[in-house]
């Protein structure tokens, strides 16, 4: 009950934020969307709208950060992907991606068809279906029915198990995100976690990095092209 009441309180906030966005008051819209998130509520749409507002007020790094967050929570959404792509085109760094093995890529794309919750529901539904079909197999009189029930129960069990795994995977991506977005206009990446480390390369606002290791004030990061180095914790924002 209390959760329901809470949700209803947040909705007017979202509506007024959308209103501000429609009127072109992007800064106010950012403020309101952030309040919704600060209240401990979230939805992919909120992150997406917030990112749009940031984009419109020319704040590229927070825009990309929130698009990424929205995409993790609703990986199948075409609008989010489109806008994220557009925002990425405007960042300074153009980093060549290491090409992934095509099976890995397909697998990734397949998992990204649904979010963690959706996979969880699929898993639950198919598991129950499996139990029903298996019971049918056990008690069916006719041989053909028995056969059909057996094979379809095996299939549903396989789907249930794999979607269980996918759901776990998608959840881990959000909870233990190793990705971060560069927020500083310009960051020098060093060879070791201290100021005297050799300067390796410079990256700019909006670039995505993968956090490999943490040492006090520093993150060890890797770029999509495979280069690694250390940078200060406050120059990036984990997704």
């Amino acid at each position: 009950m209390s959760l329901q009441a809470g949700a209803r309180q947040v909705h007017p906030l979202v509506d007024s934020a959308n209103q501000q966005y429609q009127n072109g008051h992007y800064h106010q819209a950012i403020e309101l969307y952030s309040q919704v998130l600060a209240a401990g509520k979230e939805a992919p749409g909120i992150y997406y709208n917030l990112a749009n507002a940031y984009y419109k007020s020319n704040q590229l790094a927070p825009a990309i950060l929130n698009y990424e967050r929205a995409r993790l929570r609703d990986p199948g959404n075409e609008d989010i992907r489109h806008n994220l792509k557009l925002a990425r085109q405007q960042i300074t760094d153009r980093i060549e991606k290491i090409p992934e093995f095509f099976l890995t890529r397909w697998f990734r794309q397949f998992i990204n068809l649904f979010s963690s919750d959706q996979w969880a529901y699929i898993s639950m539904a198919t598991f129950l279906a499996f139990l029903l079909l298996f019971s049918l197999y056990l008690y069916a009189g006719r041989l053909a029915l028995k056969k059909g029930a057996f094979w379809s129960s095996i299939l549903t069990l396989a789907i249930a198990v794999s979607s269980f795994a996918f759901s776990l995977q998608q959840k881990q991506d959000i909870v233990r995100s190793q990705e971060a977005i560069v927020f500083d206009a310009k960051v020098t990446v060093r060879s070791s976690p201290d100021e005297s480390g050799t300067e390796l390369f410079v990256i700019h606002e909006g670039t995505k990095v993968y956090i490999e290791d943490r040492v006090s004030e520093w993150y060890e990061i890797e770029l999509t092209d495979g280069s690694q180095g250390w940078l200060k914790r406050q120059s990036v924002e984990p997704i």
Partner: protein
Amino acid sequence: MDFTAKAPNVVRQGQQFRLTYTVNSQAGDFNPPDLSPFDVLAGPSTSSSTNVSIINGKMTRKYRQTYTYVLQASETGKYTLSPAQVEVDGQTYQSNALTIEVIKQKQGSGGQKQSSPSQAQKGKTKEVQAPGDDLFVKVLVDKDRVYQAEPLVATIKLYSKLNISGLENVKFPAFEGFYKQEIETPTLRQLEKENVNGQIYGTGILKKYLLFPQKSGQLTIGSFQVDCIVQKKVEGKSRSIFDDFFGSYRNVRMSVESEPVGVQVRPLPSGAPRHFSGGVGSFQIDAKLDKQQVKVNEGVSLTLEVSGRGNLKVMDHPSVEFAPDLEVYDPKVSNNIEVSQRGARGTKTIEYLIIPRHAGEYRIPPVRMSYFDLDQQAYLTRQTEPLTLQAKPAAGDTTTGGRRSYARQDVSIIGSDIRYIQTDGFDLKEKNTFVFGSPGFYLTYAGGLAAFFVVLFFRRRKAKESADLALLKQRKANKFARKRLKAASRYLKQDNKDQFYEETLKALWGYMSDKLGIPIADLSRDHVRGKLQEREIPEELISRFVDLIDNCEYARYAPASQSGGMEQFYREALSTITALQQKLK
């Protein structure tokens, strides 16, 4: 036809001066104005000159006729001489009017005004002297409070009481923060006389600029520097009679510098319209197409003409919103601007070359241009009429059947923008809560499995129970049959034929029912035979059983009967059941 009057602007009381009228054609009747404020000392003396020049075989003849008066002013004051009239070829022409100011005579001065360039130039020492009040330069501005981009005129003027023979090392000021355009001024030949605070100075305009401030705030026009070569009379020293008569002059270099001038530039008021092009002044805009109808792939030019007064040269040209499928080339911009004392005036012509690549009607929406009007102190917007361009399919291209001969086009992306925000269907939930790992999630699996096993368990038990019952019946079938047969044997002893056969029949069927697990109602000879064959009971035993049943049914209803038959039948039934019992274990 040119008829001009010329005289100094300022003269001293009692000074002699010339008044000349010049006409560039053979003149007839000359009518001088009333010269009464002045004493006419001489004139009018007439002189004429002819100048013939042949350039490239073309001869031009210039004729000049001059009427000269020598006048003297007797009274101080400002006098206006009305225009003189002259008759040329039966027509009357008028000269310009003149204003002459007569100021009081001062003692010990006036000697400087000797225009005697032929004087001896002795002692060419380039000595630099402080100019003092007798020689200075000034930068004059006509306005010192202007709006940004509002034009102002800066005049560099030389004031001198001395005899100047030349200027050197001219350094014009840096007009920082201004866009400057020079105003044509006649070459300085002679200094004009002017009354400055009651003193006569020879003045000359060195340069004139039209300035457009490019930024707001306090702008400063830096100083103007020039070295003047001044002829000075040498006094004292050699006192020969010739020196006294001719005077002895030497050249002195005097460096003069003007004071910097400040100009207060106000920024344009806020609230500039969207189409503001940076223009300040007053403008008109006009657009026209050179052809209204063209064939596809033919060029048309759209000419935008911005005309008026103001900073035409620096303002942006207005943008035209062309239909996206028109091929438009970068415009050619030409300026025809005349700069004068009153500002810059002219036309800016912007010419676009347009090529329609598809047949159809293209609309060119009104071109809007906003500017800041200085008179009304407000932003005004001018717009052109909307234009339409009709493109007809290109004719005569028979090879492609009248089709366009160029490649198909992709849908051209005119702009890219992010997609719009999500407006509804928000499924708000607590942060970082997932279905995966929630109690409900695991409960679904656990509950499903539990329900499955419960069902399984009950089905198993029920099946076992019914299986047990069948086994019991089977086990007890023999016993039960014997019990029935025992009852039959009782009837045998009583010689009750009907009851005996009935009981025997019941015992036989009942045995089969229990043994094979078939309900009594479903029993028939064929059914039993089939079931027994399934269990691989020898055919001989099956027929024995079926015969027994047949005999029993027959004997039951047969009229003739003897107890001996009954006795034998009983034994036969007993032995058959025993035999079946062995086989049906």
